[in-house]
């Protein structure tokens, strides 16, 4: 278990002064992930908010080696970096023990980068892939992704008069990753710093590919006031919309179990992206979303009890 004091007093690896929105969870996630890393790390980022706000020539928020290649290929890029590390270490040209972390948003991970991620895990590259999941393409201006939940308003799944936001349910990427049998996989969120730090450390210790899906509220796309980011993050866990769990060696473990499972409406009504659902002529979208959340939670309870 990490101590906050110890985390807070180490040298910053992801610096302030970048251009993220106030209340941005993606940058909080990046900073926390790097804080958690106890070994020297090399970082890659997919095109997306984190990449855009953290680098603009001649500035960089990254105080660790960093590479950005393109949108759909951070997993492949880091596969190459890790392969080079193995080659050069064998030759004696690299002495240090390094770790590799890839960052991608839900666009770069759930959608356009899914194949690349699958390849990286299947080839067993020892890279930690971190998805900062803000449930839509925020960088291009809040378009739907396969991580966008049922009913959410985005600019390509708008709250219309005929169709109230996104019709479909979310893709369960964490389970898709688990089907690859990675060395370690987990879901976490920034509101639970200790959960996040512990999982990053486990992932970096795991001898093989690892994956952490970090629920990262986006105040702009989700339409809430910036100071509510941590509250929204915590409510996602308390409503079981975003269960915190991990998978290793064939076993599931729920790492934070809410004392009382709140209805999802407590999470939804804080955010403008769901506002239209409360004025809609029926409660079908909310019911469908609640049913999905319940189903996944129940299944997780069963799996973690095994």
């Amino acid at each position, binding site marked *: 278990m990490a101590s906050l004091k110890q985390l807070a007093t180490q040298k910053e690896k992801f610096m302030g002064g970048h251009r993220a929105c106030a209340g941005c969870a993606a940058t909080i996630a990046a900073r926390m992930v790097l804080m958690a890393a106890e070994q020297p790390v*090399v970082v890659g980022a997919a095109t997306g908010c984190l990449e855009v706000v953290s*680098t603009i*020539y001649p500035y960089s928020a990254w105080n660790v*080696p*960093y590479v950005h290649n*393109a949108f759909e290929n951070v997993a492949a*890029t880091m596969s*190459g970096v890790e392969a080079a*590390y193995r080659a050069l270490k064998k030759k004696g040209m690299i002495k240090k023990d390094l770790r590799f972390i890839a960052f991608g948003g839900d666009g770069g991970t759930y959608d356009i980068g899914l194949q690349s991620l699958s390849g990286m895990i299947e*080839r067993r590259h020892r890279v930690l892939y971190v998805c900062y999941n803000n449930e839509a393409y925020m960088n291009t201006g809040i378009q739907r992704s396969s991580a966008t939940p049922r009913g959410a308003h985005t600019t390509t799944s708008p709250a219309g008069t005929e169709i109230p936001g996104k019709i479909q349910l979310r893709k369960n990427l964490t389970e898709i990753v688990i089907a690859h049998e990675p060395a370690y996989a987990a879901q976490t969120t920034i509101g639970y710093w200790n959960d996040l730090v512990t999982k990053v450390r486990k992932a970096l210790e795991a001898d093989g590919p690892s994956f952490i899906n970090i629920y990262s509220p986006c105040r702009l796309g989700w339409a809430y006031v910036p100071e509510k980011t941590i509250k929204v993050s915590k409510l996602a866990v308390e409503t079981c919309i975003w269960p915190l769990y991990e998978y290793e060696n064939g076993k599931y473990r729920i790492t934070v179990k809410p004392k009382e499972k709140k209805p999802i409406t407590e999470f939804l009504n804080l955010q403008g992206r769901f506002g239209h659902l409360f004025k809609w002529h029926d409660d079908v979208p909310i019911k469908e979303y609640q049913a999905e959340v319940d189903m996944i939670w129940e299944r997780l309870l069963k799996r973690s009890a095994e």
Partner: protein
Amino acid sequence: MIVARTGNEAMAEAMRQINPDVVAAYPITPATEVVQLFSTFVHDGTVSTQFVPAESEHSAISACVGASSAGARVMTSTSSQGLALMHEILFIAAGLRLPIVICLVNRSLSSPINIHCDHSDSLASRDSGWIQIFTENTQEAYDTTLMAVKIAEKALLPAMVTTDGFIISHGMERVELVGDAEVPKFLGERKAKTSLLDVDNPITLGALDLQDYFFEHKRSEIDAMNHVLPIIDEVQKEFGKKFGRNYNTVDEYKMDDAEVAILAMGSTGGTGKVAVDRLREQGKKVGLIRCRVYRPFPKGAMLKAVSKVKVLGIMDRADTMSTLGGHLYNECRSILYDSEERPIMKNYIYGLGGRDISIEEIEDIYAELFNIQKSGEVDKEIVYYGVRGE
């Protein structure tokens, strides 16, 4: 050592001797064998390369970018649709100034789907910032693969070495190999100025670069291309001195007293040389020019060569889809604009989708060039040679 090898085998052999730190690749006809043979070297321990068998060409070249950014010597191989799938990342590799080398086997791009040779794949990448060298035969493919690593690392630009699909890739020829121990001596280790693995000196690579700096960075990349031809000359000279085989950016064959000539790229250079020999036996003053280095375009050497003749038949194995003919035709017309005396030029688009071009057909083209010389006129500037209905 003298051996019999196909183009693919020769390129794989060169890769074995280079022993790159990382090879990331995905198989595609007709380049599959390069990757396949290389995997055998990896699994038999004859190379120490980290092999990344990627799940697509896009990921293969992306992994190459990552590995090269980490300071490794990196190679891959592909063809046609594979290169097209890499297209996005080709520009990034060049922009990040990464000396990756691709062994490229030329094959036409779909549609219609076809697996045979034309140059539409490599020429669609001509503006990506890669050095492009088209080889005529197996020996040259082997030699150029070895040289390309050195050229790319000196220029800090990526390079692709091409062979013609099936014609060279699967054609068995006599090849003289350099000794295994000679190759590392010729190449040395890659000395990258920066590396992602240098955690004590962290770099940010691939930063967002907007209106205030992008242009300067792009300009410096273009400037790097301006310095490539002398590097190629230097490496070719060194290679010739060490191993006895000499290459130029533009290959001239019996051009000294030639009145008419054809200009071509790739294996057609070899077919054309046989046609030249036959016609020379009949006392006809014909020559052949082969564009070996296509990117950067060797303007000086090309001007010198094409200015020797009265009539020039330019053979392009791809079309620019601009209604202006093929790539070589357009570039030659462009470089000749300022010349007071220029040859009469005719463009022959030929061999698309692997349609064979024979010695006799090239002789036929020479005959036509002589007719043009006599009349002083070209009836039709751009013709599609060997296609039904023309």
